[in-house]
C-alpha cells in the first residue's frame, strides 16, 4: 500500500532525477541489459526514442502522484487518468511488445538501481521502498491490461503512440 507520505517522497525525489533524467535513462537500460541481455531483443535498434518515452511516462506517473487531497473532486480527463493510461500501456506491453509478466521484476530492479545510482545518498531505505511500492502498483495495473475491456477499435490508435 502506497501511503500519502510515500507519494510525497516519490514526488520530491523526482526533482533530483529530472536534471539527470537522460543519463538516468541511459543507465537504466544499461543496467537492464546487464541483468537480462536477452531483453535487448524486445527493443528497437535505436533506443533514443524509447529512452525519451520511458522518462516521459515516469514523469507522468510521478506528476499523477502530485495533487493535494483537496483536489480529489477535480475533473480529470481519461487520457490524464493514471489508472487508464497505465492499464492501456500495460496492454500494449503484453499484446504488442510481447512482454511476459515476469519481465516486470528485472525491470523494477533496474529502475531501483538507477534511482539509487542517480539520487545517491538521499535514496535511503524509506525512499527505496516508496519507489518499490509505486513500481509494484504500476506493474500490477500494467499486467491487468490484458484483462481490460477497452474498445478494441481504439487499440490500434493507441499503439500508434509508439514508433
Amino acid at each position, binding site marked *: *500500500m*502506497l*501511503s500519502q507520505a510515500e507519494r510525497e517522497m516519490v514526488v520530491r525525489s523526482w*526533482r*533530483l532525477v*529530472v*536534471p*539527470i*533524467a*537522460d*543519463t538516468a535513462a*541511459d*543507465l537504466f*537500460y*544499461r543496467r537492464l541489459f546487464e541483468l537480462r541481455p536477452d531483453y535487448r531483443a524486445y527493443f528497437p535498434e*535505436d533506443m*533514443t*526514442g524509447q529512452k*525519451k*518515452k520511458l522518462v*516521459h*511516462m515516469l514523469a*507522468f506517473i510521478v506528476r*499523477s502522484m*502530485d495533487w493535494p*487531497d483537496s483536489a*480529489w*473532486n*477535480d*475533473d*480529470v*480527463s*481519461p*487520457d*490524464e*487518468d*493514471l*489508472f*487508464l493510461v*497505465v*492499464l*492501456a500501456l500495460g496492454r500494449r506491453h503484453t499484446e504488442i511488445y510481447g512482454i511476459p509478466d515476469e519481465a516486470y521484476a528485472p525491470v523494477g530492479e533496474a529502475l531501483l538501481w538507477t534511482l539509487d*545510482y*542517480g*539520487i*545517491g*545518498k*538521499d535514496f535511503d531505505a524509506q525512499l527505496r521502498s516508496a519507489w518499490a511500492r509505486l513500481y509494484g*502498483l*504500476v506493474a*500490477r*495495473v500494467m499486467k*491487468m491490461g490484458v*484483462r481490460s*475491456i*477497452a474498445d478494441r477499435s*481504439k487499440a490500434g*490508435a*493507441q499503439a500508434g503512440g*509508439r514508433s
Partner: protein
Amino acid sequence: MDRVPVLAGTLDETDLEGLVEMMTLFRQLSTVELESPAGAPEGTLWMKSGQVIDVIAGDLTGLDAVRYLVGRPGSYTVYRIEGVIDPTTQPLMRGTELLQVISELKTDSARLQHSTGLQRRGALPDESATVVSAAATAALVEPADASARQAAPSVDASAATSQPQSGDAAEQPPEHTTPLDTVSAPRLRDGSPPDSAETEPASLTALPAAVPPPPRAPSTPAPAPPAARAPSTPAPAPLPAPAPMRMPPPLTPAPGRAFAPSPPAAPPPAAPRAAAAPAPPPVPAAAGPRWATPAAPPPPAARPAPVALRAGPPAPGPARAPSAELEHSASGPHGPILAVFANKGGVGKTTIAVNLSVALVRRGLEVVLVDADPRNDVGNALAARKDTSRGLYDVLDGTVALADVLLPTALPGFAILPAGGLNLPEDVFARVSAQPERIAALLLALARPNTIVVVDSPAGLRGVSYSVLSASTHALAVVQAEPLAVRSAALVPRVLDGIPANHRPALAGVVLNMFDRRVAASLAVLDGACEIFGAEAVYDIPIPRAGVFIEASANGAPVALMDGSGGTTAGFIFESLASHVLARLGLSTPKLSDLRLL
C-alpha cells in the same frame, strides 16, 4: 451519467484489497461492482482520486458494507463513470484507510475462522488471508445483531475507542486528515442522527451525525431522501444501476451523495498524453556501446550572449535581460564562474564547493557560492540559521529579488545563494529549471569583477547542470575514488566537448574525493582518472576519505574552521586546492603583503 466498463476478473485472482489498491490510481470517478459466483450483485464501491466515496452492499453502506464484502468470492467489474460528483460531497475515507480496514478484517476473519473451526471455503492467493464461509461472514456483518458485532472485535473496539474523539473532532476543522476511526465511528454506531446535524456543515467529515446513515429499509426501496448537503441539486440523480438488480433490497444512493448529471461526454481515452507529448530536441544518436556514450546534449536554445571564457570584456550585451536586476550583468568585465560538477550524486560536490569557497575567501578573494542543486544542500551543510527555502530557483522564477535571498555569511567576502525553490510547485520548478538563458544571466550578474562565483551543480551532466556548465567559465570535476565512479567519469570530457565552443568552460581540474591510500582500488582510480582527463588535469592532492567531513557536515561547519579532529589537515588540503584552482583561473594568489592585517 454513463459508465464505461474498464476491467473485469474474478476475486480469486485479484481480491478486494488488490482492487482498491489499484483503483487508488484512478483520478476519475470509478466503481467496482462485485458479484457472487452465481452472478448476483453483492455490492458497489465508489472511488475517485484515491478517495472512497461510498461503499454499498444491499442496504449496508460504508464500513458495514465493507465488512460484508471482504473475503466474499465472486467476480468484479471496474467501471469508469462519466459524470461529476456534487461538490458538497465528502469522501468517506481515503483509499489507504480502506485498505487498512480491509487488511485488518482479513486478519480478523482468518483468526475468527481459525478459532471457531469454521470450514474453509477457499483461500485467497495471499496465504495470510482466508476466505470465511458465507455464513460466518454474514454473521460478522449483521449490524443489527449486537452479538454479531462482538464477533468483529477489532473494528468494534476501534469504534468504541474513537467515541470520545468523535466529540473532540466536532471542534476541529473539517480536514480530511481525520483518523479513520473518527470517520468510521458514526457509520458503525449508526444511531439516528440528530436533525440538528445538518445545520453544521462545517464538520461534515468529523461529525458523527453529519453523514446521515443510509435508510435502513430492507423491504422498501427507500425514496431518495432530500440531498442533505446539496440543496441546489433538485433531485438526487440516480446512481447508475450497478448491474442488473437481482438482490432483494435494491441499492439506494446514500443520502447526500448526489451526483450531478454528466457533462458533455468526455473524449474517448486517447494514447497517453505523456507518450504523445512533443519530444524534446533530438539527441544526436550515440555511437559505440549504446549505454556508454552520452550523446552530446543539445545546446541551450537561446542565449542572451556568449559568456566570455576568461575574465575580460564580454561579448555585446544580451538582447533581452530576463529582469532588471540582472541587467548589469552583460556589461563590463566579470569574474570567473566555476562550476563544481560530477555526473554522480554523493561524490562530494557540495563538500568541495563549500570548503573550496571558504579556502578562497581565506585567501582574500570575494566568493559567492551558488547552490544550483534543488536539494539545497549548501544551506544544510552549513546548518544555516537563515531561511534557505527561497533562493536561486525563486529568482529564476522572477518572484523574488536576488538581493533578498543572497545571504551574507560570518566570513566577510563570502555570500551564499541557496537553491531555495522549496515552495515552488512542481511544474513551476520544472519550467524555471529549463531556462538556460536565465541561469546564465543570473550567474553573470553575480560574477562581478574580483568575485569568484562557485556553483554547486546538481548531479548529472544535463538539465540544470548542463546550463550551469555552459554558463561557467571554468569547471571543476569531482570524481569519487571508486572504480564505478571513474568509469562513469569517462562521460565527462565528452560532454564538455559537446558544449559549443563559445560556451564551453575550461576544465579547471579534476579532484579525486574520498581517497584512501590503503586501498588498492583507490590508486587504480587515480590512474584511471589520469588516463581519462590527462594527468595534468588531475590534482595531485586527492581529498582523503576522512571522518572530519562527516563530523563537519554534522556540525554544519566547513572543515577549515574546525579545530582538532583533523580539521586543520583537511583545511590545509583545501588551501592547497584553492591555489591550484586560482592558478587555473588565471588569477594569482594575492600577494602576502596584501594579506597583512595592519
